[in-house]
C-alpha cells in the first residue's frame, strides 16, 4: 500500500516526525489554553553574568 507515492511505513515515519515535533504545542494547547492551567513564573535574582539583580 502506498500513500502519496511512498510506502505506508515511510509515510508513517513522516507523520510520526511531525507529531514528535508538535508534542510541546499539543501539551500547551490542551493544558494551558483549553484547561486554563497557569504557568508559574519564578523570580530571577541574578543577571546573565551571575551578578545579583539590582533593585530599582
Amino acid at each position, binding site marked *: 500500500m*502506498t500513500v*502519496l*507515492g*511512498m*510506502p505506508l*511505513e*515511510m509515510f508513517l*515515519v*513522516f507523520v*510520526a*516526525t*511531525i*507529531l*514528535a*515535533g*508538535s*508534542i*510541546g*504545542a499539543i*501539551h*500547551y494547547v490542551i493544558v*494551558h489554553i483549553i484547561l486554563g492551567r497557569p*504557568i*508559574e*513564573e*519564578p523570580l*530571577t*535574582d*541574578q*543577571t*546573565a*553574568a*551571575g*551578578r545579583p539583580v539590582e533593585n530599582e
Partner: protein
Amino acid sequence: MSEVNPFYLATFVIYLTIILLIGGWAYLKTNTVDDFWVYGKDLGPTLATWSFVANFVSSVSVIGFIGAVYADGYSIMTGVIFGLMLGIGCLYFVIDKVRNIDKFTLPDIIAEVTGSQRARPIAGVVLLANAWIYLIMQLTGAGLLVTTITGVPYEYMIWVIGGVFIIYTVLGGLVSVAWTDLLQGTLMVVMITLALAYMILDIGGIAATNAQFAAINPGLVAPLGDGVYTVIGAIAGIIAFFGTVFTEQNNIVRISATDSVKTAKIHIAAAGVILSIMYALLILLGGATTVALYNAGLNVENVDLAFPVLITEYLPTTVGIFIILAILSGILSTTDTRLHSCGITTARDIYDYFDPNASDQRLMNISRVSTIFFGITATAIAVDPPGTILELYAWRAVLLTSAFLLPVYLALYKRDIPGEAIVLSIIAGAVLGMGWDLLEAPLGFPAVFVGLSAAALALAIGNVAWGSSPAPTPTAD
C-alpha cells in the same frame, strides 16, 4: 571553475549587505553584557520562535540532508530527523526545570547540579569544541554552495562569508543574531515551501515524484533505506540526535533569554511545529531534487553538491535566486548562533571562572574578542575541511549526548545525586562515547549506546561511592 552568475552574485551581495546593516543597528541597541549574551532577557515569543527555527536549520539541513536523500533516500527521516524533532518536543517539558534554577548556560546548570564551579570551565571546553566544529561545518557548506552558484572561487568566498558573520555577531551579540534570525527564518520557511511547490509541479505532483523516486531504487523510500540503517543503528541515531537538542549551549541560552517561562514554552512549542513540518517538506524536496537530476542525466559525485547542482544546472535563474536566499538564510542563521555561543562560553563559562570579579564590560569585551578568534580560526579550517558535512554532524552528536544528556538532566530532576557522581558520569560518557566512535564502533555496537551506558554505570557507581554526601550546594570558588 564555473562561470560567475551575475544574478546569483548580486543576490548574495544584497543579502549580506542587509545582514550587516541589521548588525550595525543591533550594535546601537547593545549596551550591557546581558544584552549581548541573552538579549537583556527580553526575547518575546515571535522573535524567540523564529530565532530558534532559523538557528536550527543549518547547512547540514539544507545541503547535507538533501545530499543524504540523494545518496540514501528518505531513511534520514528515521535515523536523524525523527530524533531531532522528538528532542524539541521533549525540550518543552524541561523548560520549567531550566528556568527554575535561574542559570543561563549549560555549564552553569552543570555547576549547579554538581555543586562545583570547576565543572563550568570543563563543560565549557567541551561545548566550545562542539560549537567550533559546528562553525566549520556551516562555513564549509556555505562556501561550497555559494562558490557553486556564484562562480567565485571557494578560497575567496569562504573568507567573505566568514568575515560578514563575524562582524555582525561581534557588533550586536544576541540582538543581531535574533533579528537576523527573524528575517532568515521566515525567508527560509517560505522559500523552501515555494521551491518544493515548484519542483512538485515541474515533476507532475507529489505522488508522481515519490513514485519516480522509488523507481530509481525502492530502497530510497524505505524507512531504513537500502541497508543504510539497521534497526539498532536507527535507534542509536534517534537517541544521539535527540540528546543534542538538550545539550546544545544555544538552546539553553535561548530559553534563558526569553522574557518569561510562558514565552519560553510558546517558542519551543511553536518552533517544534514549524520545524517538523519544514523538515518533512525539505526531505520531500530532496526526493524531488534527486528525481530531477536523475531525469536530466545529471550525476553528482559529491552528494553535498546535489542541491547546488540542481540550482545551477536545472532550475531557471529566477527560481534559483529564491532557493539561494533560503539556503543562505539557513546557513548564516546557524553560523551566527554558534559563533555567539563560542563568545558566551569563553567569557561566561571559562574566563569568568578564573576571574570571578571581572566587570561586565570586560566580560563583553572577552566575548567579542573570542567571537573574532573562533570565527577566524573556523574560517581558516573551513578552507580545507576534514570529512563531509554529515560526518562531522554525527560525530558531535555522539559527544554531546554521551557526555551530558543522562547525568545533567537526571540531576535536574533528582537533586540528591552526589556532584562527584555527575562529574564522573560526564567524563565516562564523553571518553567512552568518543573513544568508541573513533574506533569506528567495533562489534557493530553504536558509540552513543556505549557512551550512555558508561555514563549510567559511572552514575550508579558514583552514587554508591559518594551517596552519603549531602545534597550539592554551589560553591563560591
